[in-house]
């Protein structure tokens, strides 16, 4: 036995053993070689525009200096001061309202979409006839592109001709009069509801996949111990889904803070201003930097938003690091 194994072990101790690290180095270089094109593309597609955008935010880049582009006058941090602190700055105008709306919108959409997605995933995580068909049909809202969602709901919210008021007032008799949804404070709900409508199905699918990975034995054991449905959900399902929920909430918050299409399609035919209760940060940023031709200030707001989001992601990841990596 030893005669068979010894040469192998002994070979490690041979003087020519240093040949191995050389081989290992070759093997180590290969993955980097494979990654190189992707890394290069990342630099070209992401890093270069970020650096360029950062420089733009320090320039007086507007309608009158656009032809100079990167050679436009350097103004240091003046764009940042203007958009953040100067109430008379056109890009600043309405920013607090848009900030408030975006925070509420993001919280509400995330909470509703995650809750509905989880609830429906729990319902679908059991056997019943037509389960596959139900799952497919429920995914339909997610398949519809956001710009189509915005356009369609824009029609559905019309006070007199829209189907929403028809259902609420004429069919269900929930209300005694037809309210405006596209004018006034209801505008906020007019953008929240379509966003939730489109967002929850994909969350449902992700939660369903995660639920199917939870061992059935845990539930059986809990049942034997007399655990109620709520206790099983509270102590088995929720902890098992926590890593997925944590990461999906983060994605939702990011998506919703950067939300643009639905508002733009629903209210984009004039100045793109949906009113005090419908304006979000991205439509505001697009309108007030592109329509006003204030590209330097627009870039400054973009970087402020990016910085805020980076802080949010860092805090979130730090807070839930254990939940995201813990298999249990």
């Amino acid at each position: 036995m030893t005669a068979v194994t010894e040469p192998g072990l002994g070979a490690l101790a041979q003087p020519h053993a240093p040949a191995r690290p050389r081989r290992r180095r070759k093997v180590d270089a290969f993955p980097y070689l494979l990654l190189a094109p992707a890394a290069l593309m990342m630099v070209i597609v992401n890093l270069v525009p970020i650096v360029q955008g950062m420089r733009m935010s320090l320039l007086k880049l507007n309608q009158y200096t656009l032809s100079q582009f990167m050679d436009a006058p350097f103004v240091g941090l003046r764009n940042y001061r203007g958009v953040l602190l100067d109430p008379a700055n056109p890009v600043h105008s309405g920013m607090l309202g848009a900030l408030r709306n975006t925070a509420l919108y993001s919280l509400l959409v995330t909470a509703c979409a995650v809750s509905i997605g989880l609830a429906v995933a729990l319902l679908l995580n059991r056997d019943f006839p037509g389960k596959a068909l139900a799952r497919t049909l429920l995914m339909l809202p997610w398949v519809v592109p956001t710009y189509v969602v915005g356009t369609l709901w824009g029609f559905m919210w019309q006070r007199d001709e829209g189907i929403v008021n028809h259902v609420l007032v004429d069919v269900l008799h929930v209300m005694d009069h037809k309210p405006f949804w596209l004018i006034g404070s209801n505008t906020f709900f007019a953008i929240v509801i379509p966003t939730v409508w489109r967002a929850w199905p994909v969350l449902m699918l992700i939660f369903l996949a995660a639920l199917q990975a939870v061992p059935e034995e845990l539930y059986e054991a809990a049942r034997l111990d007399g655990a109620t449905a709520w206790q099983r959900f509270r102590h088995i399902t929720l902890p098992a889904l926590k890593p997925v929920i944590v990461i999906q909430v983060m994605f939702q918050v990011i998506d919703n803070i950067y939300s643009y299409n639905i508002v733009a399609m629903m209210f984009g035919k004039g100045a793109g201003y949906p009113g005090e209760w419908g304006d979000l940060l991205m439509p505001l940023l697009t309108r007030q930097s592109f329509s006003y031709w204030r590209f330097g200030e627009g870039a400054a707001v973009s970087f402020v938003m990016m910085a805020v989001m980076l802080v949010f992601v860092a805090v979130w990841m730090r807070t839930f690091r254990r939940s995201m990596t813990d298999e249990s």
Partner: protein
Amino acid sequence: MSAPSRPARSSALPAWRWLSALVLATGAARASALELSMWVMPVTTNAQNDIPALIAPWIAAHPGITVRVTVLDWESGWNKITAAAASRRGPDLLELGTTWMPAIAAMGGLEPLSAAQLAEVGNGAPYYPELWKTTQVFGRRGVYGLPWYADVRAAFYRTDVFRQAGVDPAQAFATWDSFHAALRRINGITVNGKRIGALAYAGKNDWNVVHNLAPWIWNAGGDMLSADARHSALDTPQALRAIDFYSRLAVEGLVPANALEKDSDILEGAWVGGEYGVIFSGPWLMRRIFEAPPGSGVRENFDVAPYPAGPHGHATFFGGSNLAIFKGSRHKAEAWDLVKYLGGKAPQVRLSLLSSMMPARVDAANDPAWTSRHPVFAKLTAIAADGRAYPPIPAWGPLETVYTKHLGQLAELTAGIGDKYSEPAMRAMVHDTVTEANKVLEEAE
């Protein structure tokens, strides 16, 4: 041994030479064929075919020149044109909305016309003076193109509705007061089984917010900008009076509240569908009227009238598109020749017949081919005499966004929800508009 190969070589050589000659000849032919690149907007429903057909006679007269027509759309066209102007890489000639032209010219994106070129077109004499003004930049010397077609606004009204309500249209559109009284009489009557809303105009979600309001301001003696174009003039007593009158039409329910959440396109369809008595629109609405099914009632029962006269007349909004030579063009002489051709009478009449947009030349707008097509076209030509364009300032684009953003919010007040309309509330809204507009104008200096 080598002998047999020689004939083969000698026979292959001429073939190779022939091939080379053919390739060179093709290349030379290509080099001599000059291609002009032209960007246009969808002025007709089938511009990709209609514009080449329009310029076909010019192509026939210029052998060796071809024109590649690219149809942009109004939404993305602005970004594409500004990017071209900034990079100096773009078409040879292009169509520009009248309010876009000063901005692109100020960016250095357009080639100014020379004195000789201006002389060739009579120094602009054949065109409507207000449209000719839009080919220039306010306060600067230089002309950057030719007017191509015009957008002129008028009141389109249902004659059967007015008849049933016993309202004389001539009286109705005479003054603001008579217009107000007429709207009150036609509002809510039932015609062909439909309850009529007196007037349709859109709220915030529409690109016509400013164009709809401007004639009322002008006719009240106000203006969009101060005389030196350095400040917003929306807070003058005249302009405020006009905004108040216009808003109260909605507050009183003469503009149905549900119109305020729609855009012009939908409202025009609804007007053609018989839901409203009056709508202020342009010549393109004729296309929709012609397409309405026979017996729909509207085709046989409509007419146009000028804006009701305010204390200072009955001006209307005058816009449209101009043609210009791109600064970066390498074929400016040929591009000018084509611009000049399209600025001529016959092509303008032909384009108007294809598009239902009004010719920008006075003689073309009075040509029987246009005026006899339908009595309404002749009336639009007459109304155009009072047409008025915005001051051609480079900052008009951002300024119009500011105006549209704030004035569109009048719908929030006039729809009767939340803060109810009041003159102080309207004044506060206008004050915000003026503050932001002045900041944009200040930047322009």
